[in-house]
């Protein structure tokens, strides 16, 4: 140490003591501070002593003791939190009205998948998972999540590749979710990722933008088809029951006619029989009587019921009576006309 004229003189031994004391205090301080770690409810801790895993993850919540100075190294792993990976879209601000970021080129590419009939479907999905084995998750695989992401894409494109675009877009959705989930789980087990699949959810599954319109047109055409059929059916229903009713009516009327016809015939016949048997007892007189009565009726002015409660008076035919010996017919005829 060099002495400077204006400097306050300090005992060097005291300085030494101060330095050593300071170092010791700092070391002890760091030591004490790095002696503890805490475990949150949703995580577990992996402790490595001098690089070596201590055998069991620490799952008990609360404050724990460890060796200081990085002799024990603690890594926290969230194990109960359900984590989510998104493919083809990304959530910007989750919430009741979740907002999505505009899709980047890479996302759009990931979601355009070739289907088994060599068409293209735009498939967006998300995968939810939890870390089920923190040891494997940390020590068996580097970048387990990145690996998992790549697996997701591979499995989804494999599963979609075994389906027609129709299945992908309509009927096959839940089946795809299930198959992707199962395949991913067995692959994750094989890779020892320490990941347990919770859900695979297909979000928007669409035909690509460029062909959307033609897909909608198919839907429209389908609607049109059913409306045409319905219209025809309605028309059918309007006509057929009515005409069968009418047919029924015709037949019933015919039956009525038949009964009437036969009854009338029978009546006429019975009448005739009666009259005839009476006639046979005195044919000459009866015959004459009928004749005279008829002619009388024919020539008479008749009163007839008009069917509406009134009485119609009908005149009989014009009558011209000539002496059998009379000659010159016309004067009589004229006279008769004038008389009318």
């Amino acid at each position, binding site marked *: 140490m060099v002495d400077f004229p204006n400097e306050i003189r300090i005992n060097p*031994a005291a300085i030494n003591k101060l330095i050593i004391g300071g170092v010791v205090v700092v070391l002890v301080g760091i030591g004490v501070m790095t002696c503890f770690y805490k475990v949150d409810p949703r995580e577990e801790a992996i402790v490595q002593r001098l690089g070596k895993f201590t055998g069991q993850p620490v799952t008990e919540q609360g404050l724990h003791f460890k060796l200081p100075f990085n002799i024990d190294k603690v890594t926290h792993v969230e194990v109960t939190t359900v984590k989510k990976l998104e493919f083809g879209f990304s959530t910007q601000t989750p919430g009741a009205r979740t907002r999505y970021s505009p899709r980047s080129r890479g996302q759009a590419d990931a979601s355009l998948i070739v289907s088994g009939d060599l068409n293209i479907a735009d498939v967006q999905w998300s995968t939810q998972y939890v870390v089920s084995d923190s040891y494997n998750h*940390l020590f068996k695989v*580097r970048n387990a999540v990145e690996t998992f992401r790549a697996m997701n894409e591979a499995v989804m494109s494999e599963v979609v590749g075994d389906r027609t675009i129709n299945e992908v877009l309509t009927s096959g959705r839940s089946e795809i979710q299930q198959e992707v989930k199962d395949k991913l789980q067995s692959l994750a087990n094989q890779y020892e990722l320490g990941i347990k699949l919770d859900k695979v959810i297909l979000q928007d599954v669409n035909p690509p933008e460029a062909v959307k319109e033609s897909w909608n*047109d198919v839907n429209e055409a389908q609607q049109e*088809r059913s409306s045409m059929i319905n219209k025809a059916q309605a028309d059918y229903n309007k006509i057929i029951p009515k*005409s069968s009713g*009418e047919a029924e009516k015709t037949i019933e009327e015919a039956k009525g006619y038949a009964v009437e016809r036969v009854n009338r015939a029978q009546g006429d016949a019975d009448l005739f029989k009666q009259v*005839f048997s009476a006639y046979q007892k005195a044919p000459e007189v009866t015959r004459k009587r009928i004749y005279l009565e008829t002619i009388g009726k024919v020539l008479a002015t008749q009163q007839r019921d008009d069917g509406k409660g009134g009485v119609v008076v009908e005149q009989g035919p014009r009558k011209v009576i000539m*002496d059998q010996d009379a000659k010159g017919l016309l004067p009589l005829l004229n006279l008769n006309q004038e008389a009318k």
Partner: protein
Amino acid sequence: MFKQFTSVFIGILLFIVFLLVSSSVYIVDETKQVFVTQFGKIIRGPINGPGKEEAGLKFRYPFINEVHAFEKRYLEWDGAPNQVTTKDKLFVFIDTYARWRIVDAKLFFEKVRNESGAQSRLDDILDGEARIVVAANDLVEVIRSRQREAVIPEANVLDDESQLKPFNQGRSALAQQVLDNAGPNLKEEFGIELLDFRFKRINYSQEVRLKIFERMISERSRIASKFRSEGDGEAAKILGTQQRELKTITSGAYLEQQQIKGKADAEAVKIYADAFNQSAESREFYEFLKTMETFENTLSKEDTLIFSTDSDFFRYLKQSSPAKE
């Protein structure tokens, strides 16, 4: 003054001791495998290699021993999208990934030095192999992987183009080929074990994509017009059925009506005939009665009847005595 120097000296000494001790121990992490070289020559290791549990504190000679650490964990390799022409002349981008690990750290160190060296070798080899395999097969072989029948919804029954394309080998077989072709080579040459190789994405190149879109559009419009003409057809069928049933019903009714009437008429005829046809006398009487009835019904005021006084009716107009027989 001397005291001062002593404490500085002790401090330096302590520092040197600390340096010596700290450079003669090293930690092998759970995730690492290491080997130790002395003047560039491997003298120990690999320690904590694949399948071994040897992590922990280790010793070495300070300064002359060098420790080389490598990843023990499974590592990912993510290929860049690669444009390939398939056997059926389609331009596609294939994007692949693989998983690998270092199984022979010495060999790995000698041949590729470090991970980035390894990644670039993997790029060369895996991209190349993938390219060869894809180019030797039709596109459908990379797309399909499992034999299954498409479930065709009712709405698309007639759409034969929406069937799954048949394939022989399939995606996983192709991936396996890449694995088989590249794997042994990587292991022998670089100490790299290839655990898995997969096709991640297969996309049409831009111009092919446009063609596919065109095809999809035309396919859809075919289906749409099919639906429409089906609608027309079904409607016409229903209306046709309607007409047929209408005719059947009305004509059936007419038939029955006529039969009923005919039967009744026939019966009436028979009844009349039975009544009137008893004898010659009854026939004559019927004729007479009918004639009388006809007179009654046919003659009206428009008619003019001219009677002679020698008729039965007017005969008494001239005389009251009985007719001379």
